[in-house]
Structure formats: structure tokens, C-alpha cells
């Protein structure tokens, strides 16, 4: 059946239709296009809003998360009243309101090696707005195997990266980074933070490239990696090449089907709470010892800017990175209890202290558990 625009659609898209490079032909290409957005978070939010407004005919969303308060600082498709709602439902409601002519397909699932090919195969273009390495390698490999372009963006604090992978023989993500960093080495947004506006900028670079690929106009961001530094307000461009030895898109690929990406990235399948370690101390017991004026020292190994958000009054701040140089500030004759935000960094601090001959214990669950169990007036972040 021939695709046409209704009178309402012609009015809606008039500012596209009067650009010669888009025109009726381009708008019909948009209407016939299908784009899959993986993730409806920081990157997915501006992508979904603008691609819907632009009139991409069918947009798929993959997410299984629920909106929470910490999302609202950057995931602008979700509103305060959506907290607790499924991200898919929240996003789809806004998209329908923006443009009822767009078909929205919802995939309420985590993308896995088992379902990825089935989901991705029904779309022309895949946009990676995920937040973790296993899914990024999964999306990349699936796109290479299905021969579909992968519009890539990623963010950290004030910096972002964007490019288009696996497009007409161009490089893929594995050509750029053959392997992921080991878990814990690169801080995530939850640990490292992200300027709320940054995913807007990077997400819209991805949206721009998506529209260009559909319209087949301009120079696609293929074989080039854009680096954006918000603080310097600079864009830089680096050359990307397809690696002939790439295990997925190279001349003699060794990865010919999807693998176990959690294993590949060294990440445990489930987000496990840190295992209780012999000698860990509960916040309630720490509070009791403070109240009894027991002879021990509580140290806080977080960063100074975290200390400004929330603190335990008697704790001495020694950031983990400075601990090895500041051991002389501690009294080796008393027991040391270390805490951080959730207990991961303080476990490292305890290991370091024990190596240096101190008696040390880790406060279970960090200041978050302190807020839950001891003093609810301490804010969580």
C-alpha cells in the first residue's frame, strides 16, 4: 500500500516539508521508518521526545525499570507524578501526547542474548541509550549480526561520546573498545554523577544521526567518534576504523552468535548486595557505641562533596584515595570503624587498614543504612 500523509500530518510536519532536503519524500521516509530505543533514561528521554515529534513512523522502547526520584534531574520524559510508574508507560504516555501518528511498541524486558535478535530484527535503526557495558556489547554484536546501524552515545559527568557503529561496513563498538574495563574501575553515573543536561546534548546528537540515516542526507557520523566536553564547551572528533581483526565485524569473525555478556564483562548476573563479611558492624551497634562513649574511631571514607550532603557527626572524613597517606592521623591502639555511602569503598578501606596493622571493621550498608536504621533525618542521595 502506498504511504501518504493526511491533511493533519501535512500541517503538523509543515516545517519539515518546506525544507528541500526533507520535503514530502523525506517525511514519508520518516513515516515508514522504525527505530528501536534501548533504554528510556537520560539518553532515551530526549531521543524519544524528538524522534516522536519528527514523525518517525514506529518507535520501539526497551526498558524494565521504574521511574524514581533520582531520575528526574535528567530523564525529562518522566515527570514527578510518574515516580513509581513503569518507565515504558510513562514514556509512551508523553509520546502519544506529542504525536498520536506515531506507533509505539513497548518491550518490557531486559535485553538479553536470548531475546535481542528477535526484538532488534523488526527495526531499521537501533539506538543505544543503555547504561552498562554488558548491554552495550550485546547491542553492538546483535547489530553487527543483523547488519543494522547502531547509533551510539555514552556519558560521564561532563563528557560524552557519540558515533554510529555497524553502518555499511563501518567500524563497530568492538573495533573501538575490544574489551570492557573490569567492573569497578570506571565509576557509573550512580557513583560518579552526571550533569543533568549532558544526556540531552548527547541524546540529541544520536537523534540527529538517526534522522539523517533515515533521510539519507548529510555526512553520517560513521568512522568518527565525537567527544563532547561540556565544561570546555568543545567538540572534538577522532577517527575510527574498522579493525580487520575485530572478533565480530572483522574479516574472520570468531563471534558469530550472541554470547554471555555478563560473563564477558566480568559482571555478576544479578546485582548482589555486598556479602556480609566477618567483622562487619551494624549501624545500630555503631550508634550504641557512640552513645556509650566506647573508645573507637569512626572514619568516613567518602569524598568531601558527599560529606557536605550527609554525614554522621562524630565521623572523621578521610577520603579513600587519601587514606594510605593519612594513616598517621589514626590511633593504632583503638579500633577503627569505616563507613562510606553503601559499604563498598569502606570495605576497601578496612582491607587497607588491616594490611597496615590497624584493627578495623566496616559499617554495614554505609550512611544509607544509617539513615534507614538510626537517623532518618540524614538525607539519602
Amino acid at each position: 500500500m502506498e504511504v501518504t500523509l493526511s491533511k493533519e500530518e501535512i500541517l503538523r510536519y509543515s516545517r519539515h516539508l518546506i525544507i528541500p532536503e526533507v520535503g514530502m519524500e523525506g517525511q514519508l521516509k520518516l513515516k515508514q521508518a522504525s527505530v528501536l530505543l534501548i533504554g528510556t533514561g537520560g539518553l532515551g528521554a530526549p531521543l524519544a521526545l524528538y524522534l516522536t515529534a519528527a514523525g518517525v513512523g514506529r518507535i520501539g522502547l526497551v526498558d524494565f525499570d521504574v521511574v524514581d526520584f533520582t531520575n528526574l534531574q535528567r530523564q525529562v520524559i518522566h515527570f514527578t507524578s510518574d515516580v513509581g510508574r513503569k518507565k515504558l508507560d510513562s514514556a509512551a504516555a508523553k509520546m502519544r501526547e506529542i504525536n498520536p501518528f506515531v506507533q509505539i511498541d513497548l518491550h518490557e524486558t531486559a535485553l538479553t542474548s536470548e531475546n535481542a535478535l528477535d526484538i532488534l530484527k523488526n527495526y531499521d535503526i537501533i539506538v543505544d541509550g543503555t547504561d552498562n557495558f554488558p548491554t552495550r556489547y550485546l547491542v553492538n554484536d546483535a547489530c553487527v549480526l543483523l547488519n543494522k546501524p547502531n547509533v551510539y552515545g555514552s556519558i560521564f559527568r561532563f563528557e560524552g561520546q557519540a558515533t554510529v557503529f555497524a553502518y555499511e561496513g563501518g567500524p563497530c563498538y568492538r573495533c573501538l573498545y575490544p574489551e570492557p574495563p573490569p567492573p569497578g574501575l570506571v565509576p557509573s553515573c550512580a557513583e560518579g554523577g552526571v550533569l543533568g543536561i549532558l544526556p540531552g546534548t548527547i541524546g540529541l546528537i544520536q537523534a540527529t544521526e538517526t534522522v539523517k540515516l533515515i533521510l539519507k542526507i548529510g555526512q553520517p557520523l560513521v568512522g568518527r567518534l565525537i567527544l563532547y566536553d561540556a565544561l570546555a564547551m568543545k567538540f572534538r572528533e577522532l577517527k575510527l576504523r574498522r579493525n580487520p581483526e575485530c572478533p565480530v565485524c572483522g574479516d574472520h569473525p570468531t563471534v558469530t552468535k550472541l554470547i554471555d555478556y555478563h560473563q564477558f564483562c566480568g559482571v555478576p548476573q544479578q546485582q548482589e548486595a555486598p556479602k556480609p563479611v566477618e567483622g562487619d558492624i551494624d549501624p545500630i551497634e555503631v550508634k550504641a557505641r557512640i552513645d556509650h562513649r566506647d573508645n573507637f574511631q569512626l572514619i568516613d571514607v567518602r569524598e568531601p562533596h558527599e560529606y557536605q550532603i550527609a554525614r554522621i557527626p562524630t565521623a572523621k572524613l578521610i577520603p579513600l584515595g587519601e587514606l594510605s597517606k593519612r594513616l598517621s592521623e589514626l590511633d593504632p591502639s583503638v579500633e577503627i570503624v569505616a563507613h562510606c555511602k553503601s559499604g563498598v569503598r569502606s570495605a576497601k578501606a578496612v582491607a587497607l587498614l588491616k594490611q597496615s596493622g590497624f584493627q578495623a571493621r566496616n559499617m554495614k550498608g554505609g550512611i544509607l543504612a544509617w539513615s534507614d536504621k538510626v537517623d532518618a533525618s540524614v538525607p539519602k542521595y
Partner: protein
Amino acid sequence: MAKVLIPTPLRQFAGKQDTVELTGMTVGEVLSGLTSQFGELRKHLYNDEGKLRSYVNVYLNDEDIRYLDKESSAVKENDTISIVPSIAGGASWK
């Protein structure tokens, strides 16, 4: 002098600087100057065998050194060396 651009995640190991000016005839020499100045950077850039880690890319101006002479790539006055690590963004995995 060559300029080395330090990406945000690694600045904490480089005295919080975003740029470090160093001399060296090759990329390897410049990076070795950088890691002798900032010891903590070494383990983030190199593995135990002293090879550049595969998730840290190094560019001489806009070209990946893997496609030049790797760490032997010759550095000229005013060249820019960029360290570009993999970033994922988003969720926590600690």
C-alpha cells in the same frame, strides 16, 4: 612539548588536571613521563605486562595510535595526545 588530554574519569589520578604538557619523542615516552609524574595513573593505563589496556584508547591528534606506530608513533611539537577510556553511563555496578 606535547599536550596530553586527560579524560574526566582519570583526572582524579592526575592531580585533577585536564591537560598535562610533557616532552617526548614518541607517544610511549610522553605517556611514560605522564605516569612517572602521576604514579596512580599507571595501573589505569597499563596492564601487569606493561601493555596499554584494551579499554583505554590513545590518539595522536585525531588518529588512533593502533593504526600508526602504536607507542612508537613519533610526536611533534604541539601535538595533542588524547586518552579516551570506555564509558557506559547510567546504572550502578560496584
